């Protein structure tokens, strides 16, 4: 019995050791996003609270905590309250399989990439639940838009993952990174990386694909009726999802924790730091896109997903597999 309790406590300790940095990182990343956005538009951005405005997100969180949570009278209360919890939980549980270095991973499971994909495909429920339970028109329209968008872009993300899996021969995330020791997959699969990046933008409802919360048409989409801490949870979940997509991109295409070249000054930097650098690089790209590109129209968004990305990534699967088969490069089991 003591053995079980010991295991339980070490696991809880490990989970906290992972989750608290992730939550802090989410707060910091919100700040970074606003800063980058501001710099592109020649503004200062948040720079008052703390050095360089670093504590802005903490101040925001405090503000949200002391605000009143308003539940609409005609809302379905249980589902209304469950929705932000679901979003937040799903955004956090996927970090269990992300490898920060060869041995630094909470759960090194065989089907890691499928787990990530499954959890990110569940993310749509938080949005549908929030939109439906609010019992109001704008949230419902936003939820439907968002669900259709996420389901469509998931398909192309899945096909892109197949491309990478063909080159690694394993669903384990650690194996996927180790397979890139000689050549990061961004070089042979560059078109897939571009499509992955754009699909990730759509999957996380980031601009230019933020139609679910297009403020000019839908107020704030599925979040319209939410206030206080519940709104903050949606927000945190969204940013945690963005971080997750960035880390997925760096694992699949940028070689995870591996350093770009295996020579002296680069090997000094510990592996998890390389991983964090890559996530930050992708995230800054995300926020640059937000600052630069105008919003898509909804029918164009659907056309892009189904008529351009899906055929392109599917045909790239054929190309990759024929190339690997012809040159006998298929990863042997």
């Amino acid at each position: 019995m003591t053995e079980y309790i010991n295991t339980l406590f070490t696991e809880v300790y490990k989970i906290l050791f992972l989750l608290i940095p992730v939550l802090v990182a989410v707060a910091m990343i919100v700040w970074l996003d606003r800063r980058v956005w501001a710099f592109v538009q020649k503004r200062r951005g948040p720079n008052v609270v703390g050095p360089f405005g670093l504590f802005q997100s903490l101040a925001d969180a405090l503000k949200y905590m002391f605000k009143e949570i308003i539940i609409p009278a005609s809302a379905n209360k249980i589902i209304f309250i469950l929705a932000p919890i679901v979003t937040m939980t799903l955004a956090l549980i996927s970090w269990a399989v992300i490898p920060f270095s060869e041995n630094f991973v909470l759960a090194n499971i065989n089907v890691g990439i499928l787990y990530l994909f499954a959890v990110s495909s569940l993310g749509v429920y938080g949005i549908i639940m929030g939109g439906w339970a609010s019992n109001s028109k704008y949230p419902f329209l936003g939820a439907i838009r968002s669900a259709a968008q996420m389901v469509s872009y998931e398909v192309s993300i899945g096909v892109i993952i197949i491309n990478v899996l063909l080159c690694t021969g394993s669903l384990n995330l650690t194996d996927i990174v180790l397979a890139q020791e000689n050549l990061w997959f961004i070089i042979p699969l560059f078109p897939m990386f571009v499509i992955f990046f754009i699909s990730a933008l759509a999957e996380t409802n980031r601009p230019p694909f933020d139609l679910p919360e297009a403020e000019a048409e839908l107020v704030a989409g599925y979040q319209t009726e939410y206030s206080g801490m519940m709104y903050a949870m949606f927000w945190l979940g969204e940013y945690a999802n963005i971080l997750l997509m960035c880390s997925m991109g760096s694992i699949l295409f940028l070689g995870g924790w591996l350093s770009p070249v295996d020579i002296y000054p680069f090997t000094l930097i510990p592996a998890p730091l390389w991983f964090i650098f890559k996530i930050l690089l992708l995230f800054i790209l995300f926020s640059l896109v937000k600052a630069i590109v105008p919003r898509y129209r909804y029918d164009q968004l659907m056309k892009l997903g189904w008529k351009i990305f899906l055929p392109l990534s599917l045909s790239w699967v054929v190309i990759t597999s024929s190339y690997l088969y012809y040159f006998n490069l298929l990863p042997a089991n």
Partner: protein
Amino acid sequence: MIIHSIFFYIFSIIAVFCAIMVTVSKNTVHSVFFLILDFITISCLFIMIGAEFIGMIMLIVYVGAVAVLFLFVVMMLNVSQQKNEWFTGEKNSHHIPVGLLIGTVIFFELIIVAGGWKYKPELLKNFSSIGIDLNTTNTHEIGKILYTDYIHLFQLSGMILLVAMIGAIVLTFRKREGIRRQSYFKQISRERKDAVELIDVENNKGVDINV
């Protein structure tokens, strides 16, 4: 293994409870949410017996795609009134015999499977003589079996799905008349000389426009 069985019972109780709630709950959207929770717990059970690939695929396909469409249909069509009529209206007596029949058939099928599993283990061995290698991951094993022994069935099911997809598109697609569709090619290939013309307008005369 105590922990293992505790988790097994927790998941199975949730699964059975959700399955009952799917049929019992009055609100149709709640039914669908219980169905989703049921799918999730079932995939947890799959993972517990070591079938991790099937568990994950179940999550991705059923919960991530099929149940979302269920939810859409239920939310949009407002099925809840109809469901209430089925339960409380006079029509319900028509459905009970059919339901009972199907229920009994499924019940006996389950008894046969479970009984065979318990009392005639050698019977099942004949069906599962594929020879599973426990040292490789079960993704590899499924791949090896699916793409060698069962390749024709696999291709056949793919064909059926393709036909179903084309059928659905043909049935629901309607070309609406009188709509100006956006054509990227037309937009990009438009040039200044096709679009703009400079005309000297005489005073008090106006211009003929022939588009």
